[in-house]
């Protein structure tokens, strides 16, 4: 109860007092926690991360095929999962999202979303019609997923907790996007509007919940990533953007990919209108960005051996 109260208070402070101090003229990070490390096998190759209201941190690890729960102090509390294709097992764990007392995980080549409780008990597999590229759990128990489109365009789906499709829209307006070119990550703001960053195109978009384009912007000065031919298929080989996350003040943090000046480290901070406010650089390359409900940012270090938690500082 105390944790809930303190969380509620922290959110209140952020909501009421924060915006005045969060103009995002300049953003920097202050490290507050590191889980794992160069000589610590707590994490081996972490992929997905989410948190709960109590400050616990949940992480998927691709090298020991597990889901791990760490306390707010970074201590390992529980570990679940192993290699396999049975309930609670993984072949290639990738994405993780959480809402309330539920966790949602994906296995790279599985058409479905695994549901767990906060004690890491596997509950069931929620059906999904395609492979999931990005996943968010919405506060109302719904799930939003960007799914692969081959040959049809990639889509953004909103499903209920049973996997029933509530709405969907295509991710790309481009008719000749090419294979995988409409792959994207996304996040939502407090109003439920989508911010979408394309993996292989220099494009970030804002869309309404029903998919209407609000704005689309380029930030890298290049339209598309280079491609390579694999077994007569033309595939993109350079990432433009790797992930996107919205902070407590509605700023949009977009993680640059290989085409950034500092690959996988540059973060572009936009306002809700898509105006670039500032950029900053992560200390180490990361494959993803996650911002929790208390406005802490999580990113990768040591090539996946370490998960770092940062306080976001706004000047």
């Amino acid at each position, binding site marked *: 109860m105390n944790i809930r109260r303190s969380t509620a208070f922290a959110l209140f402070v952020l909501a009421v007092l924060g915006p005045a101090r969060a103009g995002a003229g300049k953003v920097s990070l202050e490290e507050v926690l590191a889980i794992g490390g*160069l000589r610590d*096998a707590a994490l*081996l190759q972490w992929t997905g991360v989410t948190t709960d209201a109590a400050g616990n941190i949940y992480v998927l690890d*691709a*090298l020991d*095929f597990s889901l791990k729960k760490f306390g707010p102090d970074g201590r390992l509390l529980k570990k679940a999962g192993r290699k396999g294709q049975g309930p609670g097992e993984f072949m*290639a764990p990738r994405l993780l999202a959480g809402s309330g007392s539920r966790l949602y995980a994906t296995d790279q080549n599985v058409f479905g979303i695994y549901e767990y409780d906060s004690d890491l008990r596997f509950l069931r597999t929620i059906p999904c019609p395609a492979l999931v590229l990005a996943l968010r759990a919405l506060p109302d128990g719904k799930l939003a997923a960007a799914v692969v489109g081959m040959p049809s365009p990639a889509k953004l789906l909103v499903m209920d907790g049973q996997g029933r499709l509530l709405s969907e829209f295509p991710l790309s307006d481009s008719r000749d996007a090419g294979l995988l070119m409409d792959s994207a990550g996304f996040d939502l703001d407090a109003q439920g509007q989508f911010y979408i960053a394309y993996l292989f195109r220099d494009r970030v978009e804002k869309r309404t919940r029903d998919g209407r384009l609000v704005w689309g912007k380029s930030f890298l000065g290049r339209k598309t990533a280079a491609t390579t031919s694999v077994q007569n298929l033309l595939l993109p080989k350079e990432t433009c953007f790797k992930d996107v996350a919205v902070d407590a003040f509605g700023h949009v943090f977009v993680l640059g990919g290989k085409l950034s000046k500092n690959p996988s480290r540059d973060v572009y901070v936009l306002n809700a209108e898509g105006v670039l406010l500032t950029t900053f650089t992560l200390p180490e390359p990361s494959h993803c960005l996650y911002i929790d409900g208390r406005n802490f940012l999580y990113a990768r270090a040591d*090539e*996946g*051996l370490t998960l770092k938690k940062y306080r976001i500082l706004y000047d």
Partner: protein
Amino acid sequence: MIELRAARGAARRSMRAALLFAAALALAPVRSACDARGAPFPGGGERSSCWILVDMDTFFCGSCLEHLLAFSRAVPARIQEERVRGILVFGGSGNPEEAKRRVQVIRTKWQGFSRANDIRFTAAVDADKAFAGLVKAGIGVLVFDARAGEVRRYPLPVPRGGLEEILRVLVD
């Protein structure tokens, strides 16, 4: 884990380094696999061994992990412990500090990965990049066939019939 320091030099010397290292790893007393005329001995004490060269820069793609785990599952635990060694190869810049950090990263990852997946063979980080020329991407297997006096190279996944060949050599 053993740290490789013996084999310095350019990629063209890699095979020679590999042969020397194979000799060092053989568990039984090692002697030349060929007689004075170059003909292989018909057997007599040498023990064959197998090295798995793992490109740690591409190792974490799903299929590479799967191929390596499939191979380790197919090789009996005792054979893994006695006859198989891993060489963990990596690329990157020539910055010594960065290379030192990467050696530690790779070592920690391998330890955790092998423990979690019951891999029984030990592995060494190719700290001096002696084997960089032998593994461009993915995973390769070098089999030191003591009886035949030959080194054979296989990709992973091993082509059809290859796994049986490797096991036959290692069990001999």
